């Protein structure tokens, strides 16, 4: 039982916590605000917080001048595609490890995790050359392949920890009821694991959306997702803060919202179940 806290103490903590929270959030807030300013106001001194002429001009400029929609679509295709394929491969694997554990299951799990620890730069060159020779450079397919592979261990692990919580009795009951393995996975396991599968999906879309090593190195104009598109603002000409802010806001908004929904699962997913 928590003890009652005096209102005065609670008020102090409230002020303090909100202050710190806003400070940490401020760069994002500032980016969002700046995206609604004109370029002149964006660099005005003193800077204004809300007392400026709100405009949507930057958003339309970003959309018009660059192929923003293409990059957005690339991000969606790459992150969702790699996550879905990953799930398709990982669900059967996690089923095996959670419900038919053998002597080597633990070793396989650990080995899968170890592939995630491979520094990407260690395999950059061969992947780059293979992609160059097979025409996969700067294609969505190529990125989907790479992101599926780098996130597969996380997907398997997350699903494994969720599946472990489903009593094996229920799967055995399905077997007794005449269900084939396929029916068991489709009608019993998957619906029961929906919350776990959903948070795995969400977290992996987020990770893939924000992945910035492979996307920067393996794409140019065609398949570049938003991470790479935004990077093109690093050598700008003229006034560009407001436009950078608009592009940035559009790039982070969808994932910020998904992230807030998945924050509870985040801890478990990213620590491979070590902290729950």
């Amino acid at each position, binding site marked *: 039982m928590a003890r009652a806290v005096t209102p005065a103490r609670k008020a102090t903590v409230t002020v303090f916590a909100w202050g710190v929270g806003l400070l940490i959030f401020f760069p994002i807030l500032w*980016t969002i605000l700046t995206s609604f300013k004109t370029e002149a106001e964006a660099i005005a001194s003193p800077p204004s917080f809300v007392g400026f002429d709100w405009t949507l001009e930057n958003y339309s400029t970003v959309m018009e001048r660059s192929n923003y929609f293409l990059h957005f679509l690339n991000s969606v295709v790459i992150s969702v595609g790699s996550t879905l394929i990953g799930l398709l491969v990982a669900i059967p694997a996690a*089923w095996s490890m959670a419900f038919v554990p053998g002597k080597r299951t633990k070793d396989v*799990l650990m080995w899968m995790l170890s592939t995630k620890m491979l520094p990407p730069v260690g395999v950059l060159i061969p992947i780059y050359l293979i992609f160059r020779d097979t025409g996969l450079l700067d294609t969505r397919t190529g990125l989907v392949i790479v992101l599926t592979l780098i996130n597969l261990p996380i997907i398997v692990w997350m699903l494994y920890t969720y599946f472990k919580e489903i009593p094996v009795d229920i799967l055995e009951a399905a077997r007794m009821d005449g269900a084939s393995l396929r029916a068991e996975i489709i009608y019993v396991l998957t619906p029961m694991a929906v919350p776990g599968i959903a948070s795995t999906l969400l977290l992996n879309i987020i990770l893939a959306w924000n992945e910035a090593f492979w996307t920067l190195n393996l794409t140019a104009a065609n398949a570049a997702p938003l991470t790479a598109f935004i990077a093109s603002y690093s050598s700008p000409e003229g006034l560009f803060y407001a436009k950078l*802010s608009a592009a940035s806001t559009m790039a982070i908004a969808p994932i910020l919202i998904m992230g807030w929904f998945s924050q509870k699962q985040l801890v478990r997913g990213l620590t491979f179940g070590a902290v729950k």
Partner: protein
Amino acid sequence: MATQHSKSAARFMISPAVLLLLGWMLIPLSLTLYFSFLRYNLLMPGTEEWAGFLNYRFFLTDPAFFDAIWNTLLLVGGVLVITIVGGVLLALLLDQPFWGQGIVRILVIAPFFVMPTVSALVWKNMFMNPVNGLFAFLAKAVGLEPFDFLAHAPLSSIILIVAWGWLPFATLILLTALQSLDSEQLEAAEMDGASWLSRFFYIMLPHLSRAITVVILIQTIFLLSVFAEILVTTNGGPGTATTNLTFLVYAQSLLQFDVGAGSAGGVVAIILANIVAIFLMRMIGKNLDA
């Protein structure tokens, strides 16, 4: 416990994942290893020849290599210190009852979801720019000379940017761990006459130690590979001031097209990451038994 039927089914269903990851690991790794012993430049195709340990000697004696190792250590260490200390303090704060807990939690966690290129560019331009940045404005407002962060303190600036992104991660994990602490333990300690400080050091911190270790290990894995933040802010410079190992290998192979030396660097990076990985895997492996 299972039947032969389900065992063979299990083997069948796990094989796609295993084969994919096996391919992903073995093919590029062996190629990297192979290239690292070749003289191989992308600008001179067809002139590849066996080079023995030449690439390693070249890469390891390059002054840039020592800078890169040093920068990598500083970057990893700096971000870890900031995120762990900040994370513990924030977790303690957010664990207190106050109005709007849910919203503040959302505000604090937000930076983790910002893609690295966005956070780096926003910080570089809108905050750290010596002319139009918000920091420059603040400095001028109190009568100080604006400071050109990325020119005069480039590595510290990058550490700050990266730490901002990882602070939420550390906070969230430490907060989760803190909330799993049995409040009766704290109350018992209070009954025993322990002050807040001794409760923190003797009960909370030991309880958090496991979560802290996990944070350190996982962040280290990711921090060893920081790349985008460097690429869009300083491009590794000025000089080699912000070149870490990852960036050095990238520059060596894709900017100077020296695949051989780049591969040797890649192998070195793999060895370093493995040292961290071994510790992390032990931790997680232990948890698997519990």
